[in-house]
């Protein structure tokens, strides 16, 4: 069993192998792996004894269950009207400048993915973004650059410890 397969097995044991436990299992994988590989989805199908197409169908329905490769930090910029009016385009521009990727792309280091998302419910503090589960609000280009700087430094710190995470700057 590979590492991913073991993770899926553990999650299946935790939540139970019934069809209705598909979502928490998929969420559990995404929490750890940031996205669902084919291997992970096939293993889920095996554990729950349902077809792989059904797993993929469910996963592809939800924006937060990615089936394409994602970085360690998934940045989701709210694209809905309030954030749009409060300058979400300048936020995206700032992120693109720092990370050298466009919306929908992942950095070569697999550290960051930049996406747009529908309303996050932070309209009163627009513009807003999510980095993984963490919301950041009332953003300006300067603020988001500082936030990203923190993430990158943090990762640098981790790099010294783990020693094999590559990122670009």
């Amino acid at each position, binding site marked *: 069993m590979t590492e991913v397969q073991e993770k899926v097995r553990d999650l299946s044991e935790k939540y139970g192998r019934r069809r209705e436990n598909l979502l928490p299992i998929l969420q559990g994988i995404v929490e750890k792996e940031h996205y669902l590989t084919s291997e992970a989805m*096939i293993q889920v199908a095996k554990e729950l004894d349902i*077809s*792989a*197409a*059904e797993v*993929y*169908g469910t996963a*592809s*329905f939800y924006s937060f269950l990615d089936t394409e490769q994602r970085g360690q930090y998934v940045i989701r910029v709210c694209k809905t009207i309030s954030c749009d009016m409060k300058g979400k385009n300048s936020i995206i521009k700032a992120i693109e400048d720092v990370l050298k990727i466009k919306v929908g792309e992942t950095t070569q280091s697999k550290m960051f993915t930049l996406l747009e998302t529908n309303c996050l419910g932070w309209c009163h503090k627009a513009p807003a973004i999510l980095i993984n589960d963490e919301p950041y609000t009332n953003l300006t280009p300067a603020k988001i650059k500082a936030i990203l700087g923190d993430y990158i430094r943090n990762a640098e710190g981790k790099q010294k410890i783990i020693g094999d995470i590559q990122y670009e700057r």
Partner: protein
Amino acid sequence: MANINLIIDDFKVTVEEGTSILQAAEKVNVKIPTLCYHEDLCVAGNCRVCVVEVEGMRTLPASCAIPAEEGMVVKTNTPKVRRARKDIVSLLVSEHNTQCTTCYRSTNCELQNLSAEYNIDNETYMSVLKPDIVIDRSSWAIEKDDSKCIRCQRCVRTCAELQHVNAIDVVHKGKDMIISTFVDAPMNDVVCVNCGQCINHCPTGALTERRYFDDVWDAIGDDEKHVIINTAPSVRVGLGEMLGFPVGTRVTGKMVTALRKIGFDSVLDTDFTADLTIIEEGTELLTRLKKALVDKKKVALPMMTSCSPGWVKFIEHMYPDHLDHLSTCKSPQQMFGSLAKTYYAEKKGIDPKNIVCVAGMPCAAKKYEANRPEMRDSGFQDIDAGLTTREIGHMIKQAGINFLDLEESDFDSLMGESTGAGVIFGATGGVMEAALRTAYEIVTGREVPFENLRIMPVRGDEGIKEATIKIEGCLPEWSFLEGVELKVAVAHGLINARTIMDQVVKGESPYHFIEIMACPGGCIGGGGQPIPTNAEIRKKRTEAIYAEDEGKVLRKSHENPEIKQIYKEFLKEPLGHKSHELLHTKYRKRFRY
């Protein structure tokens, strides 16, 4: 159950509680248009074409999804309803590839019919058809064209509810939602058994069989080629539906004449190899029983039939560790192919490399089966092309043949003679009945103890049928079977096959012999049969099959004179050396997920 009274378009209707408005309307001959609704499947209510007006309700409910209620007053044809339906169909058309002139389903398309009925124009809503859709032609059997998909999900429900395969599912969402496979992989790369039930349940041309008739026309036009066709029992009870006859008409003689007019050099009968299957498979069963009962050897029982290539691929995917339960016999189609290029070629003095062997089948999976690498025991690809009943109907139309007034004729020889036992292969339970007619007689020397050879317990449309036959008065060489109660089961529709197999896996299967057909109703309801197919149509085709059986002089496979001849002159004995070489095969383990 309580009765419900309601009024539909001024007709008083009384129905059982739980009946939908749509079904209630049917009872008083009020036709409500549908698209996502199919009586074989659960209600989805996603297309909204069946909307009606109900007094006191603000919105227009989908009549397929709303149960009739006491005192309801329903109007199915008001300006509001008509406008709504027209808008709904217009919106579906705006997403649809409307190149009907180049569509295989043209004139047999539910969307096209509705679009014409409601006089839909191209201007109300501009086309939002996605421009970059590529047709998936990866499978030998099934073509998938998303540009024609209206996302009614009948195929998804078919694959889940009837077959329990779930090869296709709804993926992505909103405007990007499509019917697709695991990670949008090509159809030949996923767990699909090619049964073609999705094709048969598709209202449009989004799912069709991969067509081979142009290759067949080319072969017919080639003077060097000797082109032969063998037609399955279900074709002769379904084909008429495409060519102007009422459902359930037997058109055997006309079909043979038409195929001859098309230019086949020899029109032969798959029923001949169905009879042969019975001899081989029946002997195999008796051999297994002998091994188990006399030699006390470990042998895979129950034995299961292997005629249905959809079922064979299903067990290969889903139960790869239990393939030894399958009979090693090839399907009648493949037996025919391997004999056509050996026995037939030899007898007729034709170089087998010039023989093109075509199969006319009620089936999509047969196309896949013909292309399996195992199926080349004659030294050539045994079956060159598998055609569906629908393709044969198309060929007859292309040839300009007036089918209604065609004279009747008989199959050619060699390999054109058959018995009623071969014919009933077309209906669920038929292989079992044919096998019992022969096996019982081999063992006891007497006919099966059923009136007029009708083994009723294995007939009918129940998903799983079982029967027990006590064997008494055995001939001396079969005395080990004396008093044995032979337990058999018959299942059709793969969801029922799964129930049977789960029993086998647990070691709790009480049966000796099991017949399984992938499609509901057996081959008469196959994925290659005329569209529509529903319960009533399956019933009529089944009746036609049994009528065809009773119209035959010979109704037991072992009495077929051509079968006697082939054993005498070529095969020598059942399960003999030649049989193993040409008529038996091996199966392969496939991935389940």
